[in-house]
């Protein structure tokens, strides 16, 4: 497939995919984490059906890097906010802490196994551990929102899980910044920055561009000009930071965070960015899927298995902590922990960014681990999350017991149809009543 044809296909996917997903109001149908698009990419990629060739994929490297950085900008813009309110500081700390625990557990386990079964040097082992940790940290908010909105769940547990999954996004981004410091992008000039200076530069560029974006956004009332401001500052931040050997994704995350914090019109900025989320996310997932290869040059299967096991252990621990903090007796900590397994866009994005950044077998393994997490999380996570919420009494039992639950909106529509009664032909309809007649059969005010 030629690059032009691929680009056309991706644009069509962005358009129709967004339209479909938006119409189903927070994914009433389909898979919670959007893994179907990832699987489409895997199927049509060069390793399986071969509809997309490797050179075509390679030619999209720059565009993909910009797309991933844009997703990080969107994540940064709404970081720390859930359901229109700011996430409390304690819950932010809880989310970040649990994600950090997941990074350490999975990274250490994967690094240890890689040390035992491969001949990677210390630097590659460290990069592998950090990358696997980065892709294992988050619980995707998309899947959690999918379950909560689909079953109309409401209560302290839903709120806690929603808040914690919003907060844990910062950890993978920080890991990506560290990885970029250790292994700068191929096209950049490797500066002799110490690690802390590189991190400070990343934060500095992101903060400067975020403040610039917020200041210009606030004084500009025209939407067309606002688009120019956001796109211009975003591209400049990505390009300049990558040129200096820093992480473009981390820079745009900080930029989004700063812009949303400083702007007096945060809601407008977030709304503007959110309109682009699906249109960028869906092609990025397909491209990530197409990049996936299962390396046969080294025993990578044990690493993937250990990474998945480490993540399950970390989430079980998180489930126990959640249960203890809420003191809910009815909820099993194992059920809750397994319900936190869904991994989605951010995990896949982090894995994809590592694969593009490192361009070695290490990057391939990290991406394969990310995709495995997404698939395992998709199969296991929503089922157990629903069970946990039902145990907590936050889902109406009728909706939860339905084997294939129908979204609340569809049920409401069906009820309305039934209440309206059968549609009659015009000849069968009773004649229209005059005002005087209709008042006779209406509710008598007396």
């Amino acid at each position, binding site marked *: 497939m030629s690059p032009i044809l691929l680009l056309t296909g991706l644009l069509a996917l962005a358009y129709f995919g967004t339209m479909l997903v938006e119409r189903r109001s927070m994914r009433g149908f389909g898979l919670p984490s959007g893994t179907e698009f990832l699987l489409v990419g895997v199927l049509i990629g060069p390793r399986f059906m071969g509809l997309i060739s490797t050179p075509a994929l390679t030619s999209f*490297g*720059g565009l993909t*890097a*910009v797309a991933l950085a844009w997703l990080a900008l969107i994540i940064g813009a709404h970081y720390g906010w859930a359901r229109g309110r700011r996430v409390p500081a304690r819950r932010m700390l809880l989310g970040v802490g649990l994600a950090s625990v997941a990074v350490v557990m999975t990274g250490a386990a994967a690094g240890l196994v890689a040390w035992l079964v491969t001949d990677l040097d210390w630097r590659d082992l460290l990069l592998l551990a950090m990358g696997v940790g980065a892709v294992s940290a988050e619980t995707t908010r998309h899947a959690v929102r999918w379950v909560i909105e689909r079953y109309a769940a409401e209560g302290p547990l839903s709120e806690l899980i929603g808040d914690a999954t919003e907060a844990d996004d910062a950890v993978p981004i920080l890991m990506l910044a560290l990885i970029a410091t250790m292994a700068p*992008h191929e*096209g*950049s*000039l490797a*500066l002799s920055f110490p690690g802390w200076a590189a991190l400070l530069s990343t934060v500095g*560029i992101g903060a*400067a*561009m975020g403040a*610039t974006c917020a*200041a*210009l956004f606030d*004084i*500009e*009332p*025209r939407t067309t*000009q606002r688009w*120019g*401001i956001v*796109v*211009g*500052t*975003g*591209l*400049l*931040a*990505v*390009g*300049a930071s*990558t*040129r*200096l*050997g820093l992480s473009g994704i981390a820079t745009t995350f900080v930029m989004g965070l700063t812009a949303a914090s400083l702007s007096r019109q945060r809601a407008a900025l977030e709304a503007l960015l959110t309109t682009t989320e699906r249109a960028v996310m869906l092609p990025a997932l397909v491209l990530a899927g197409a990049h996936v290869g299962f390396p046969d040059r080294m025993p990578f299967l044990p690493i993937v298995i250990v990474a998945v096991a480490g993540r399950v252990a970390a989430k079980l621990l998180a489930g126990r902590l959640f249960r203890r903090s809420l003191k809910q007796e009815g909820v099993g900590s194992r059920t809750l922990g397994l319900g936190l397994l869904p991994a989605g866009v951010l995990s896949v994005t982090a894995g994809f960014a590592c694969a593009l950044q490192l361009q070695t077998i290490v990057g391939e393994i990290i991406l394969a681990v990310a995709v495995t997490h997404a698939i395992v999380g998709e199969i296991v996570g929503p089922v157990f999350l629903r069970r946990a919420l039902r145990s907590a009494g936050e889902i109406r039992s009728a909706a939860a017991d339905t084997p294939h639950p129908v979204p609340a909106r569809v049920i409401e529509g069906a009820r309305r149809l039934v209440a309206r009664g059968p549609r009659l032909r015009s000849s069968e309809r009773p004649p229209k009543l005059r005002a005087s007649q209709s008042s006779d059969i209406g509710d008598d005010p007396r």
Partner: protein
Amino acid sequence: MSALEATQSKSASARLVQAAALVVTFGLLLTATRLAPAEAGVVGTVAGLGFLLLAGTLTSELIEALGIPHLTGYLLAGVLAGPDVLALIDRATLAQLGPVNTLALSLIALAGGAELHIELLRSTARSLATGEGSAFSGAGSSMVVFLRQRCWHGRRAVSKMPCSCFAQAHKQRRSLEGCCRAF
């Protein structure tokens, strides 16, 4: 809010913010290019595109306060950032921005064509002939100059002229509409 109203409503502090943002924009790319002077490939193109978008918008907004058209602002930002002055955008990046240039040209031509109303053209043919005549004659004479230079500098300069003409015509029409509304 129309473009004219939005521009007129901007206060001195807003202009100051725009000027500061322009300094930050130039400063960031200047630092990046001086610290990493090698040709940066795709990364350089991304940075260049973002810079041109932002710096062009800001420069045009700032010089509009002086009564100078937007187009001059875009050109000024381009000249300052180009390879012959500050070298923030190198020649390789300029070459890689070619498809963007072509796309922009196509969109401007498309928008220009879509905005033409035959009835309006008929009714205002005389005023158009006098009002726009000077602009087109200026553009025409520039084109002649560029055509003469073509044998030394290649075709690029000439190919960009229709873009300037369309942009100028579009801008003047917007300004006229704004003035009419104001009256």
